[in-house]
């Protein structure tokens, strides 16, 4: 596979493990390349963990860690803790699981808001300040958080401000019967993720991240991006509309996605294809709209259909 460009190689490797999820995988990888983080809202057993593992396995020299969030999880369980070393009579810092390249924060909405905040602050800053000391996470730091649908029991819904820190929210959903049969066939002897050889190096990923920033984004599409996000602010059914952070994320993810499409510029279809995933989870609907059965994804789809697109 060395003759393929880096994005395609990475994509192919992950897809060989996680079956039937090509469009979602591409978006998740693009988010990683754009420097954002992903929130997967999904039912248990749909392959969230496998995907995170596969991404980590495909990148050589990357560290993958997983934190299972529970109601009694404390911030220090994620960030790390200083412990007194009896021999040297000094405090020694034990880094927590957050010191990694790819972090799977499983069932993030089962932890208390205090712990959630600790993670999300770190995510946004790319660093953590623990006991007055600053710790950088390094250049490749990608969080895949999963949460169960909010109606599930024993969950603390993420505060709106923290939802905004995820560049993208998407769902894997159940795959088709044929794909599920293929999954069974794959896993008769071993799990394919265990056999996945690294296909790209950590440095190549960093190069990709640089390349994504250089994808050209025309003035007109900047206006279109802003128009889409700003449209949420004039909708009566939206109580808390999307922030400029959403416009920024939409631009960055679109750029990275263009890289995966093999383009060196962004076209309006690319923006349209991720706009729902980037914008919808940031909106808080007005109660009356909620009771009428509207949801944020529908509203964003509506906005896309109504906002004149440059042609």
């Amino acid at each position, binding site marked *: 596979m060395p003759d393929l460009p880096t994005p395609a190689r990475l994509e192919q490797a992950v897809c060989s493990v996680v079956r039937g999820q090509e469009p979602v995988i591409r978006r998740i990888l693009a988010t990683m390349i754009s420097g954002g983080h992903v929130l997967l809202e999904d039912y248990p057993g749909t392959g969230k963990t496998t995907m995170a593992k596969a991404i980590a396995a495909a990148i050589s020299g990357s560290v993958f860690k997983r934190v299972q969030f529970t109601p009694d999880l404390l911030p220090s369980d994620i960030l790390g803790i200083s412990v007194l070393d009896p021999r040297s009579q000094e405090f020694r810092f034990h880094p927590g699981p957050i010191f990694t390249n790819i972090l799977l924060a499983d069932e993030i909405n089962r932890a208390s808001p205090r712990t959630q905040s600790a993670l999300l602050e770190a995510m946004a800053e790319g660093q953590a300040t623990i006991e007055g000391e600053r710790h950088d996470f390094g250049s490749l730091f990608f969080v895949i958080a999963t949460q169960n649908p909010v109606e599930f029991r024993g969950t603390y819904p993420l505060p709106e401000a923290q939802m905004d820190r995820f560049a993208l929210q998407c769902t894997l959903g159940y795959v088709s019967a044929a794909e599920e049969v293929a999954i069974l066939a794959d896993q008769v002897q071993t799990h394919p993720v265990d056999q996945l050889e690294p296909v790209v190096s950590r440095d190549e990923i960093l190069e990709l991240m640089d390349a994504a920033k250089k994808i050209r984004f025309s003035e007109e599409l900047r206006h279109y991006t802003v128009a889409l996000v700003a449209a949420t602010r004039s909708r009566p059914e939206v109580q808390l509309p999307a922030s400029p952070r959403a416009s920024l994320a939409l631009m960055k993810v679109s750029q990275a996605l263009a890289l995966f499409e093999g383009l060196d510029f962004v076209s309006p279809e690319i923006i349209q294809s991720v706009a729902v995933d980037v914008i919808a989870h940031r909106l808080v609907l007005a109660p009356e709209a909620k009771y009428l059965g509207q949801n944020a994804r529908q509203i964003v789809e509506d906005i896309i*259909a109504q906002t004149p697109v440059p042609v």
Partner: protein
Amino acid sequence: MTGNVIAAVLLAVIVETAHFVRLRWNFDDHGYARSWHLSTIAIIVLLVVFWLDDSHRSLAVSRVMGWLPVLLFPVQFTQSYGLQTSIPLNIFSFFARQRYERNLRHGLQESVIKLNFGNAYLVITLVASTLGEQANPYFYLPGIVLLIGWPMVRNRRKRPAGVLFALFIATLFALTGQATLHFATSKYSYRGKDSGSGTGLDAKTSHTQIGKLGDIKVSRDILWRLKIRKGDPFPSLLRAASYNRYINGTWDTRLPPGSRSLVLDFQDLSAYGTSDSEDYYLIRANADGKEATLPTLPRFSIRGSVNNKSLLPMPGNAASIKDFELDGIERNSFGTIRIYPQNPIIDGTILWGDHQSPEVPPWPQQDLAVIRSESRTVAEVVESLGLKSAPTLDEKLNIVKRWFDQNFTYTRYLSIPAFYDASANPTTAISQFLTTDRKGHCEYFATAATLLLREAGVPTRYTIGFAVRETDPKDGTAVIRGEHCHAWCRVWDEKNGIWKDFDPTPGNWFALEEQRLGKSSFQWLADGLLIAREDFFLWRNRPKNQLIISIIVTILAVGALIVIIRRLAKSRHVVHEHQSAESVFESNIRTALNELEPTAKKILGPRPPGQSLPQWLLPLQGLIAAPELVAEAITLHQKLRFDPAPSSKSVKDRLQSLADQIREQLDRLADAKA
């Protein structure tokens, strides 16, 4: 079209300013409904005003139509300045609103149809501009060609034949429209013109019913109302016009050779001012002003609807008139008085009864002539009655009167054909009336009497007017209706040197007429409405009342305006910048694929605003022979269009050639579809 340019420009400015200013109101359903109520009230008020005002009542509706753009302005205002882009349709119906509100109370869902009133307003304005007094049909043709032709030209690609064809169709539409409009206007708008009292009467010609068959239809509508001064007698006949030549059922005026034309025969009446600063018009040419305005003369006031050049009915021995609001009044040699009123309804006083007449003395050649076709019968009758040998005028008149009374029957059912049998003798209607049939209405009696008296050497003229029959001696009022139309003679009294009335019709004619017609059950309503309308109009027209009315109306209008403006000012909103600045950044880059959009639209239908060009063109790949062309064209288009990096010219050329190929295929497809 109301001819009020300033109002039109003001409204247009207010409506169009909405595009530039950010001032808006958040009208709710009640607000929209209120604007409609305001418009409805304005329409009703104006309809009533026009109905009261206009002598052609049938025109009131079309005049209101002309004002509709102004009247519906409140609704258009809510459309232009409301935060919503359309207004709910149910505001226009009281019942729909009731149902909607009831449903809301019961928590039922009801889908409300929304309407952009701007389109309706445009249509109303167009219709209004073709109606009303100022509407000019010459604007209509080029206007409609422009309006229809423009979209047709826009929708075609630039083919001269297509453009010409489109313009031809547009012209055809326009001509048809204009013809229809013209037809409708002539048929409906001016139909009521001759219904005004006296307008049906002409000073020069009177077409009689002599020789026609069947029932004479007469209207029972009130034409004139008289009020007699206390103690004065009622006039019995009010003359409108006299004629002196009879030809086969038609009476007209004939001047002696060498005199002025009939048009110039009308002379302005001389005015006479008395000491009590009242202005009179003297009816007779050489009258003594003092005698003609004596306070002892009997007088009555008369009130009715008139048109320009209406004939004013008055007694044959009228002396002078006063108090009429006229722009002009004139009289011809036959004593017929024609007026130019200032208002469609007039009111004034007529003085009469001094044994003089306004006509010039008779012209023997004209006023003694008997038409040849009747001369034999007339001569025979005069001979048999011994009319020529009767010594005095009064005796002659008595003989004729008595003969008619005893031997003739009055009827408005005509049974004498003009020429029923060429070989029979006599043949003309008057001859049959005199010799065989002896039945007829006043025109027969008057015409026959005129001819008989002329044969007997008395200068006589035929006169039409009204008989004063429906009187109320207690109040001193009289009413003249269409059915009181009458015809009689004016005979020259050589001894006194005046013309005087002679009515040859049997005296019981009106009683017979009443019996035959019977009473209409709704006549009182029509009378009441007419009287109320005329009286209100005259009351309103008095300078003092006019001032009061205009003050009251102004206060009401200003008050309503202040209330509306204050309420609007309280609830105004300023639309935030981002809403108006929402318009998408427009790039000036257009590729060959953009130019293809109108062609592709014929096959794919219009592109939704949120759908990008590649997505929209996607189905084309399954339709045309070379799908790879579309894919490549889309790629090149995206590069040219959205890549800020400069592209080479070869890309552009390649896309152009691809687009041309696709267009060719599309045209073929469209033809096949057609």
